[in-house]
Structures are given as C-alpha cells and as structure tokens.
C-alpha cells in the first residue's frame, strides 16, 4: 500500500479551481517532484496535504496518508500529523522562522508538541539535529536569533525542524528558490542525504527542472491546476509527451547551453 495517495483532488476558491482533479501516489521511501510555473497549483497541493489551506478554500476528492483520509479530518487530528508524521520545509527560510524566538526553542518546538519533551530535553535533541543538518558551532546557533544566521544556515534550521520527529513524509516547497546558487546545491545535497538516511518519502515542489531531476525519480508536471504529465525523470527528459513538458525541457537546455558557451553564438 502506498504511503500517500491523492485521488481527484480539487481545490477551489469560489468558482476558480486552482487544483483540478489531480491524482498521484507515493510509495514508502519514494520521491516525487511537483513542477510547474507559479499559479499552477503545486503549492496548494502541498498545503492541502498539510491541512493548511485557508478556510476560504473548498476541497474535494481524497488524500490518504498511512491509510488515513486527510480531507475532512478535524484540524485537531490533522495537527497530530503535522510536524510529526509529515514535515514541511518552506521557500523563504527567514520569514518561516519567528524573528523573536531563539533557534533552539524553534527546533525543540515539534519535539515538545508531539513527543511531550521538556524544553531541556528538546534543546538537547535540537543540538543533535543541528549537527545532523551540518551546522557549525551548534551551541552558538541554538542561542542565536534568525537574523543572525545566513540564508543557507536558516534553511538548514528549517530542515532540522521538519525532520525533528522523524516524519514518514517530507514536503519541500521550493526550498532552494530563495537561496544563493552556491548554497542551493549544498542544501539540495543535504535534503538528498537526510531523506535517504531517514528513509522518508519526499514531495519536492519546484519550478526548476534541473533541480527536480537531481532530487526525485518521478515528476508530475502541473499546469493551470492539472497534472499534464506524470513520468519518470528519464522518460520526461528523453520523450516528453506533453507540449508544456517539452517547453520546460527546452528552456532548461537553452539555459545550460548558454552557460557552457554553445547557445546562440554558434
């Protein structure tokens, strides 16, 4: 049985459907990339899994996670899964951290909520998590405030918070979009290693095709709320079936070509 199964998921605000009856499934330990331009509904899909859609949204269809139906689940029951069985990393690592709370407390948060740990025990575990996500000088970092850290360090913190309770599923919503290019690769490698080590499944949301190719084996291409193609990375690159997928690939190729000096000059 698959870990996550999305069936005919539709999300609408009033009459406007932002996600239009999409379906995909994810086995335990497997990875899927959701790719599409902004407004294609990829972030809404991940928020629906988390149960964090604004209350103005109407949702229909079905999302099952570990055999449990998530649509129509009470917020209280859903919050037992959030940060515990499902972790989430956000796009903007600075704004996703409380500016007035020390890093240590923020990492200890999910452990205190879900594992009933004391602040002291939570902070001890936070120290180990800092080491795990490769942060230098973890003692200092636990006492620091978000504005005292660099973008890459903050995103590592975000990852530590998401993985604190060993979730079965990690949702990463454009986790590297706001980072410097050099830092992007480091963070991607880290997500790769950690997801492998923890044997978690991964839903990786991005608009960047080369990134998704490096992270996942399967890709669902989304356009205007629909999944227009769901294929393995290899198939998508060599035989894209949908027009939009072809455009994505040629865009990625031309960027690569101009970088290696082939492009228009020749």
């Amino acid at each position, binding site marked *: 049985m698959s870990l996550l199964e999305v069936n005919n998921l539709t999300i609408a605000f009033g009459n406007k459907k932002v996600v239009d009856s999409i379906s995909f499934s994810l086995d335990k330990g497997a990875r899927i990339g959701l790719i599409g331009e902004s407004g294609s509904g990829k972030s809404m899909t991940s928020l629906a899994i988390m149960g*964090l859609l604004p209350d103005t949204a109407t949702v229909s269809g079905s999302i099952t996670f570990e055999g449990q139906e998530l649509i129509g689940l009470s917020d209280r029951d859903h919050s037992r899964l959030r940060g515990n069985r499902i972790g989430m990393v*956000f796009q903007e690592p600075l704004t996703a951290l*409380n500016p007035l709370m020390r890093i240590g407390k923020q990492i200890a948060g999910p452990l205190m909520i879900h594992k009933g740990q004391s602040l002291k025990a939570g902070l001890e575990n936070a120290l180990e998590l800092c080491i795990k996500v490769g942060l230098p000088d973890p003692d200092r970092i636990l006492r620091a405030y978000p504005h005292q850290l660099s973008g890459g360090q903050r995103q590592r913190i975000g990852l530590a918070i998401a993985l604190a309770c060993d979730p079965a599923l990690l949702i990463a919503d454009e986790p590297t979009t706001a980072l410097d290019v050099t830092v992007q690769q480091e963070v991607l490698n880290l997500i790769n290693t950690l997801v492998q080590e923890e044997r978690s499944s991964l839903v990786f949301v991005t608009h960047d095709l080369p990134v998704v190719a490096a992270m996942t084996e399967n890709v669902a291409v989304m356009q205007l709320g629909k999944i227009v193609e769901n294929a393995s990375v290899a198939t998508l690159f060599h035989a894209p079936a949908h027009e939009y997928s072809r455009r994505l690939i040629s865009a990625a190729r031309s960027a690569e070509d101009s970088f290696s000096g082939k492009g228009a000059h020749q």
Partner: protein
Amino acid sequence: MIRKAMKGNVSLIAGSIMVSITFALLILSFIWTPYDPLAVNADDSFAGISMRHILGADKIGRDILSQIIVGSRVTLFVAALAVTIAMTLGVSAGIIIAIASRKYQSPMIYAVNIALAFPAALLAIILAAIYGASTITAVAAIGLATAAAVAQVTRRTAHGILASDYVLAAHASGASTWRIIRKHVMPNLRASLLIQASAVVSVSVLAESSLSYLGLGTPPPAPSWGRMLAGSQQYLFVNPLLAIWPGIAIVIVVLGFNLVGDGVREVFDPTLRRIDS
C-alpha cells in the same frame, strides 16, 4: 542586565529618570509635604517664588509644591488604572477578533469601530450621572474609550502576524492555536503593545486633566494637576507660574512614559540591538 539594556539607550535613560521623578513625588506625598496642600492662607494669595513657598501659592494661598506632590497620586492612579483597563480589554478583544472565523469577524470589527466613534467625554458624563463624578468614573470612561483603539491596533497587528510565514510554519509543526498565540503572536505583538501602553498613559493623564476641568473627574478639593492647570487659566497673564508648574509635571509624566515605552521596545527587539547577545 539592566545596565546592559541602559547602555546607549538614550530614550530609556531619559524616560526612566522622568518616571522616577514622578514616583519619587508619589512616595514623598505619603511622607512629607511642605504644607498641608489644602491649607488656605489669605496672606499668601498669589505669592511668588520665595523661601516660604518654593513654587509660589495659588489664589487662596495654598502651597503649589505641596499640591504638585499630592497631585501625583491622582495622576499615577489614573495612569495605572487606565492602562490596566485599556490593555486588558483591548488586547484580548483584538486577539479574539483576529483569530475569529471570517463570519464573526466583521460584526466584531463594526462593534469596535462604533466603540471607537463614541466620545469619551460623553461616556464620562453618563458614568458621572449614574455614579457621581469621581476619579474612578473618569478613568473608567478613559479606559473603555482607549480600549477600543487598543483593540483595533492589536487586531491589525495580530492579523499580520497570523498571516506570516512563521505562523504557517508553526502550524506545519503541529502547534495548536493557543500555543501559536502564546509563543508567536504575543511576543511579536509586544513591541506594539508597549507603544500603545505608553500612549494610553499619556492620553489618560491628559484626559483626566480635561475631565477634572469639566467637573467630571477628581472632585475638589483633592489636588489634581489637571484641575490646577484649569484653575490657573483665569490668571494666566497675572500669574503665569500657576500654569507652568502643573504643566511641567504633566509633561514630565507623559514624556517619561513615552520614552520608556520607546526604550523598552528597543531592548525587547533583538533585531534592533546594537550588541548581539
């Protein structure tokens, strides 16, 4: 800790000195005053500055310094009570409205706007008519009227905080609404609340002065800076000192609390700190 907070924080240092002066007057009022502030002495009518009356005397010869010292009781009582009423009511109403579902939100916002439009003086007249004019009715009117303003600012600020990424991230970590209010909304509201509290102090001290002037606040003969100021009005050109002393006293309190509010905000906000801890 206090020394570290004070370092280079001009607002906090200046404000603390001014507030301390007021509290020193309050303590002094229970221990010693040069004269009985209510003692009438026709010989000293409009006495100027002298060794006998350091700040002079009013029309019926009451010692100004003694009245200023005792008047601090009313002023600080007014400030403390008004802040308590306004902040308790305003902050809880503001947060409740911010977290309420959309359906209940707009009627509550309308209610706050109506309360905001209701003049404090009218409320003071109503309360005075029912319970008899006293410092308490004046402060209750001021507190209730400013509570609406506090509620409105709190709601807006809390709304912004609730819409922020870090609250979404806290939800994604499984935090309950109550935990989010305690750990995320309250600390991030704190700076704005401090500013509002210091503004309420200033407004209430000034409003109590005007209400006392209208006969809706502290009844005579109990000395109040506001009423002293009002009483000096007819003699402004004859004896301007009568207006200057209570005026200075009010300025010190109002400015002092404002500066402290500003200075403390700087201490609480780690992003404004010059030296990182």
